[in-house]
């Protein structure tokens, strides 16, 4: 019995080791969204410079849609942009844009140079709508169902793989659930 006690430190070390090893495999920057399965926050945003249509939460109802948070200052958005253009070309679901904390005109200019994948864009210059959505950085993309509920949040640029394996199947599932015909 006494003998066994001498192995206690080793046992404790192994337990702690396994615990920390599991910890290392997890993503420390991951923050679960509070909005999953909750209705998207209500908002009403004015258009960015040079556009006539803004974006409001009413636009997120009536069909599955994507809401993408971007900014002309955001480097990762630059990487994501070609993927957004191809998503828009595919036309599986409307893609809406939230121009987050941009200087007046900067977002529009950015889109003019790179192409505009968005069906509608809201100008969130003071970042309040982004805070309501729990946005921690750009780009972030929300999948919103036909009832206007947030179903998924993707943090970081959408890669072609993520689009093909995660987001697109999810959108199609949601569309089929809405319309079982």
């Amino acid at each position, binding site marked *: 019995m006494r003998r066994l006690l001498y192995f206690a430190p080793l046992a404790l070390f192994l337990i702690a080791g396994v615990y920390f090893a599991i910890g290392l495999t997890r993503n*420390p*920057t991951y*923050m*679960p*969204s*509070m909005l999953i399965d909750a209705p998207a926050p209500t908002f009403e945003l004015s258009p960015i410079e040079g556009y006539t249509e803004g974006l409001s939460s009413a636009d997120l109802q009536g069909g599955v849609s994507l809401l993408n948070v971007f900014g002309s200052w955001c480097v990762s958005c630059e990487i994501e942009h070609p993927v957004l253009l191809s998503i828009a070309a595919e036309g599986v679901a409307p893609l809406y844009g939230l121009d987050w*904390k941009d200087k007046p005109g900067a977002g529009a200019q950015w889109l003019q140079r790179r192409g505009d994948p968005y069906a509608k864009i809201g100008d969130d210059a*003071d*970042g*309040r709508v982004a*805070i*309501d*959505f*729990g946005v*921690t*950085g750009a780009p972030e993309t929300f999948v919103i169902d036909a009832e206007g509920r947030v179903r998924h949040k993707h943090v970081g640029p959408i890669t072609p793989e993520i689009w093909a394996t995660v987001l697109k199947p999810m959108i199609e599932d949601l569309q089929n659930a809405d319309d079982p015909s």
Partner: protein
Amino acid sequence: MRTILLSLSLVTCLFWNAAVHAADPDERLADPLLEARAQEIGAQLRCVVCKSQSIEASDAPLARDLRILVRERLSAGESDAAILDYVAERYGAYVLLKPPVQGNTLVLWLAPAALLLLCGIAATLVLRGRTTSPAVAPLSADEAAALAALEKTAADTDTNGADAAR
């Protein structure tokens, strides 16, 4: 002595600076009482960009937005708890630097007390084991005789320095 005092006061100045001028001057509220409350709330909210800093200590643009939001809601007359709830509703309990006691934080809250209790029990057992070790039985007649013989030979060799050294 003077240099020590001087360096101490300099160090204090540094920290004082960090504590008071966390928010940019243009963010600060005119009312010092409200501003003090705002800083207290801000110190309890995690900056979601830098994770290990409070929004009051962080330079991230999002932290600035949240500082302004806290001050706006304070000026509108909201309570400290309501503002903390407002932010936690959007970013999760994770943003509260002092996590609330709830299902997934129970281990966090109870572990220190449990560990202390466990170590206390272990320590008591070990210490008690030491003090209540069985009393030494007196030597039997044979043992006493053997000991006396040993002591005698030891005393004999002691007188012989060369043997003792070997």
